[in-house]
């Protein structure tokens, strides 16, 4: 069905057969949890525990436990929100856009990337909720629900409301896309399962998959349709998130460059996060033949491109701030680079603009350790990008009388830790109980055993 040129380098190395693929992937699901998994789970749950305490205190005492003030009304909360949403971009980009472009190398990484997307979006969605002063009302008042208050409706002018729609749509489509892809693999596990519980659970999860040609045909069309649906969402979600800032009047926020710049930044951070996770998974689950240096190199190239786009955007912002002649706008950028938060700005510049440029060197972009470190640095940089945009713009805006500093408290950090705990707990559960690589798709790119015997 799928034709692969024989001169191309194989995407899966190690001479894996179709049976090897099933064995390699299902081994993790069927075996007992490894020690390293247990350790990872323990750390994640501990982090989640600390985070849950912070969330509880936040809800019990009020937003005042955070370090926000009358001038800086958002800081870590929305920084984390945008950061997580950004990370949540890679999965869908890999599975949808690369599917449409027929990039077959995506096949061994899309499953985990999509799972990461879903968990990241869940983490992101925590913040618009938790940052509300009255979550107990806001969680449903922000939705356009019919109500008994007469014509009381949500404000369709508000970018925050657009966020609600954008994030929920993106989450739903990503989840469905991911799950549909999992069905054939669940069926494989079901068929191999030896104990009753696994059989029953994976049987239920696989929705009665029968492997018939017709089923496969439908599966492929659904995947294509969902990829088509998801593709615009990859671009729209972060565009709409950027509207939170771009439609405001605050110097440093009110910028038309934000939509493309945010999307590029999101892909940038998403790919970095995929790399961070995949490099660990690959090592722990011994999947080096599936996730090869070639994959890593290709992803690093995406990071160079998006990192450079982001870098150009930073410089453009600065240029326009000066060129526009708007005093407050110019000061906002001048203050970013030289004001009390200069360290945040230069951390961002170093991590996001300078460090990815190292990937021009082939030795670095094919080096696993270097990639791992840089992927983390990129995400630190992207966190600081959002912090810089939000905090340094707000802390010195129009009236100097209100200029103030923001100092985080334990609870700012704690709620961030909460989402980390949540993310890694979910990801570890996924890695243990779900097939981390799309077996069905990967099998389609295995060079046939006859070729192997011809060698």
């Amino acid at each position, binding site marked *: 069905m799928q034709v692969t040129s024989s001169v191309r380098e194989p995407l899966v190395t190690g001479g894996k057969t179709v049976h090897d693929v099933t064995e390699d992937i299902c081994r993790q699901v069927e075996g007992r949890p490894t020690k390293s998994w247990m350790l990872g789970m323990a750390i994640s749950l501990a982090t989640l525990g600390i985070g849950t305490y912070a969330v509880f205190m936040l809800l019990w*005492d*009020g*937003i*005042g436990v955070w*370090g*926000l*003030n*009358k*001038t800086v*009304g*958002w800081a870590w909360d929305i920084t984390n929100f945008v950061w997580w949403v950004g990370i949540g971009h890679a999965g869908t980009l890999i599975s949808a856009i690369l599917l449409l472009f027929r990039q077959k190398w995506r096949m061994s990484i899309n499953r985990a990337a999509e799972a990461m997307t879903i968990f990241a979006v869940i983490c992101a969605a925590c913040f*618009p909720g938790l*940052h*509300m*002063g*009255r*979550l107990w*009302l*806001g969680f449903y*008042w*922000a939705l356009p629900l019919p109500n008994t208050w007469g014509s*009381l*409706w*949500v*404000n369709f*002018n*508000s*970018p*925050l*409301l657009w966020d*609600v729609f954008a994030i929920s749509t993106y989450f739903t489509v990503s989840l469905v896309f991911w799950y549909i892809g999992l069905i054939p693999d669940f069926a494989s596990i079901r068929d191999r399962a030896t104990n009753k519980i696994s059989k029953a659970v994976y049987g239920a999860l696989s929705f009665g998959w029968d492997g018939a040609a017709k089923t496969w045909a439908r599966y492929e069309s659904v995947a294509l349709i969902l990829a088509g649906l998801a593709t615009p969402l990859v671009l729209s979600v972060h565009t709409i998130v950027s509207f*939170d800032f771009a*439609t*405001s*009047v*605050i110097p440093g926020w009110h910028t038309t460059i934000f939509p493309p710049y945010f999307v590029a930044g999101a892909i940038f951070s998403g790919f970095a996060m995929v790399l961070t996770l995949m490099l660990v998974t690959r090592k722990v689950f011994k999947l080096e033949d599936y996730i090869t240096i070639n994959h890593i190199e290709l992803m690093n190239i995406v990071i160079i491109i998006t990192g450079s786009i982001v870098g150009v955007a930073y410089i453009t912002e600065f240029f326009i701030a000066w060129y526009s002649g708007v*005093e*407050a706008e110019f*000061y906002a950028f*001048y*203050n970013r680079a*030289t004001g009390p938060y200069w360290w945040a700005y230069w951390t961002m510049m170093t991590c996001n603009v300078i460090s990815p440029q190292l990937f021009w060197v082939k030795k670095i972009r094919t080096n696993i350790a270097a990639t791992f470190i840089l992927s983390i640095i990129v995400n630190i940089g992207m966190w600081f990008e959002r912090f810089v945009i939000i905090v340094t713009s*707000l802390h*010195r*805006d*129009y*009236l*100097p*009388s*209100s*200029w*103030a*500093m923001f100092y985080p408290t334990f609870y700012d950090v704690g709620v961030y830790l909460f989402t980390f705990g949540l993310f890694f707990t979910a990801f570890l559960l996924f890695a243990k109980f779900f097939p981390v690589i799309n077996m069905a798709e990967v099998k389609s790119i295995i060079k046939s055993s006859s070729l192997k015997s011809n060698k």
Partner: protein
Amino acid sequence: MNDNKKTYWKGIEQLSNDPEFVKNADREFPEFLPINGNSEGGGSSRRDFLKMMGFGIAAVSLAACEAPVRKAIPYVNKPVDVDPGIPNYYASTYTHGGDYCSILVKTREGRPIKIEGNSLCKITEGGTSAQVQASVLTLYDRERLGLPVIGGKDGTWEDLDKEVIAKLRSIAAQGGQIRIVSNTVLSPTTKQVIEDFKAQYPTAQHVVYDAVSAHGILAANEESFGTRAIPRYDFSRADVIVSFAADFLGTWLSPVEYSRQYSKTRKIGANKKTMSRHYQFESLLSMTGGNADYRTRIKPSEEGKAVVALYEAITANKKSDIEYINKAAADLKKAQGKSLVVAGSNDPRVQVVVNAINSALNNYGTTIDLSSPAYYKQGDDAAMDRFVNDVKGGKVAGVIFYNCNPVYNYKGGAELAEALKKVSLKVSTSDRPDETAAISDYVAPDHHFLESWGDAEPVQGYYTFVQPAITPIFNTRQAQESLLTWAGVQTPDYYTYLKNAWARRGVSGNAWDKALHDGILGARSASAGVEGDTTSLASTVTAAAGAAAFAGDVSKASAAINNIKGSGLELVIYQKVAIGDGSQANNPWLQEMPDPVTKATWDNYLSVSPKWASENDVKSFEGKCNMARITVNGVSKDVPVLIQPGQAEGTVGLALGYGRVNGGLVANGRGVDAYPFMQVQNGVVAYQVLSGVQVEVLSEVYQIAQTQTHQTYMGRDTVVQESVLSKYQDDPFAGRHDPKIATWMSEEGSVHPGALSLWKGHKYNNHHWGMAIDLNSCTGCSACTIACQAENNVPVVGRDEVINRRDMHWLRIDRYYSSDADPEDKRGLEIAAANPEVTFQPMLCQHCNNAPCETVCPVAATTHSTEGLNQMTYNRCIGTRYCANNCPYKVRRFNWFKYHDNGNFEDINTPMNNDLGKMVLNPDVTVRSRGVMEKCSFCVQRIQYGKLEAKKEGRRPKDGDITTACASACPTDAIVFGDMNDTESRIYKMLNINDTDGPDYITEKEILEPRAYHVIGEIGTKPNVTYLTKIRNKDIEETKA
């Protein structure tokens, strides 16, 4: 089978086919069940029963979840003049020692909730101050004494009276000395009470002192003119005002009165293009200094010399090398008879020279009136010193402290406390167990003034009245009544006594009622007829009075002054506008009121000059600064340092009123007590220490809670627009910075930013509320801030939360210093000039027509009204804070915590955390819950009330019917509120509004007044609050930004 077919009947009715039976035959229970009261539809009764039972269970379980029952006690018989929801206003008078203000007390359901100025009063003319506004909260201070105290334990009035009278009599019998110690007493009837007391106990003497004394002026006038009095000053007639360290707008003598007069000379417009010129010579940057056109920094030791130099420059054309003295002299000479020189010094010699200057300038009779002296300060430092010595010498047997606290607020308080142990009878009438009451044998707590009867004579011949607005909350007794009781007067009821006293002065019956109703009795002598004179007091100034011959010895005074020498650092002890002498220190509104100049709350601090700070390596960031140990004559205190631009080199400043020990939970331990640093120089209490001041910088860092930490306006011309008078006279648009936006849509190629909009704009068919703020009139006094706080139930958040930058004031006053840096030098602009120009800018919700907050709220909790208000619906708010982020003016305030009924705020936000404190809350305004946004509403409850009142009378609201709390509190009339649709309104005329009616209402109102501008108008928010440019009366513009 058919044979077996038997028929059974239910009864004879079935057999007989009784129609009644047939009707109900198909029902299960043909008879009506007893539980159903209905005569019809018996079939549904079971369902009804179940419904009722279900409802009952639900109701019972719901009732179990209900919040605790709140105490609400209805009237059994409704009082005639109390209608729920309708406020009653009573005229009264605020007196606190010599502080004076004629007021109206707003009461709701029998409890005072707000104080307004009394516009009938010719002295304060409806103005108020922050302390006056806040005094209503002191009424509901639960730390006031609720019972008389005998020997430190709660007692009864009977026991107290018995014991006090017995002791007084035994002292009198032995010929022991009795003293009544008080601050200034403005009430003539209280003085009469004291006379009655003295009649009963002939050894009794009345000793008057003031925490901040004006002995210098009194003594100087005695020397110069033979009358020991403070003259009545009239700043409104002065074209040139020179003040030597007199903070006459903030704390000196009668700031409300002087602010009112001063502002009249500062208002300019199309018809009046002149204004007074104000020179200030001072060490600290006072609020008054911040308003001055020319300000010179001098050391306290140079203060007298500067006065002498001015005298010599005027009389002998002798040039001085003190900055601006020659210029001031030249201006004064040009404005003979229309100028005023005042000095804050307590040194009679300095005041004699000041008198000589005013006399040389022929100011007596115009701006100074000696014929109707003011009684604001009557303290006699010498008498008080004698008293302290008498106590030390064991010569005094009994002391009654009448509403005063000398142990705390007299320079030798600690010695006095020690010496008082020798006094066998010590009685205090303090309302709380303060420092003096704590060491008294008996405390006979006085009423709060809002529970009291009384009168006041602030200026000779001008009387105002005090009437209670609430029955006493505690088992307290009016101090006058206590004195009368102890004096053995038969009917000690003070109301009767007061009424009789006024009847003797010819005011009784209707006249008495009218006097109480108005709160004032016009300028007239007490013995004159009933006819009240309501003409301006100023008109009573006669040439004869002015002609009072100056008889002071200037040369002797000058010589003595020239011998004053300072060495090393000099300390200035001053009062802050909010806390004053510290007697209202337990008032959290005042504690949290940002100081007009430093914007600091909850603390006092050592103010130092920036140069001193850099020399001593003291740095400040966000209010965080080193502590310093200040030592004067062996007394050491650790104080936080505040770097104060405009402070004279070689001086440090420390405010009085802090460091309370027994002030109450709000006040105790806040800041340090500066009274022990006061010294006696030449027989008078001096508020400055000229030598022997040591300051050692400590490594310990302390953060002062400031509401504003950035000092300059960064050269942002659209925030503060200012110019100088000469330029304004040439071009009324002087100082206006009017950014335009380029567009192809107009022929000129550019338009006003507001003219380009995504939005259609608003059409205001009925009212269009707006506000105009005159930056030239605003002195920064912050009465509006406290008035707003009282009116709108604005929470107090405490020092820690102010440090977290979460102050809740809906109306703040931004204070900007000028910078000497180049406008392009952004770093340099952050540093204020060494002697900066100061701008005060009240900042509140601008009620933008294109409000950035309104578009971003996801749940439409903040919306635009049909009358131009930007409304905040607390119930709908979910607290995303997006609106606050997107507010370019940063006026939105978020409820970070639950500020009411929260143990963490119990001793901070007293008006919302105890049952008594809550009585001050305005029932028309919601107390906001945690997690919602709040902000200025333009006092929408007042607008609504005014509209309803007008509607009841079948008319439209007239201009002046409706005003906001800030505008009505303002002593300088800097804030004008009104309907911009009403062509007769003040605001309409003031802003010279031209109504335009474009096809899509893009410009709602075209404002033609040249001085009018919108803050950061270039972003097109189109505010309904308009500012008028600040015009300084300087020859040339001196600073850039």
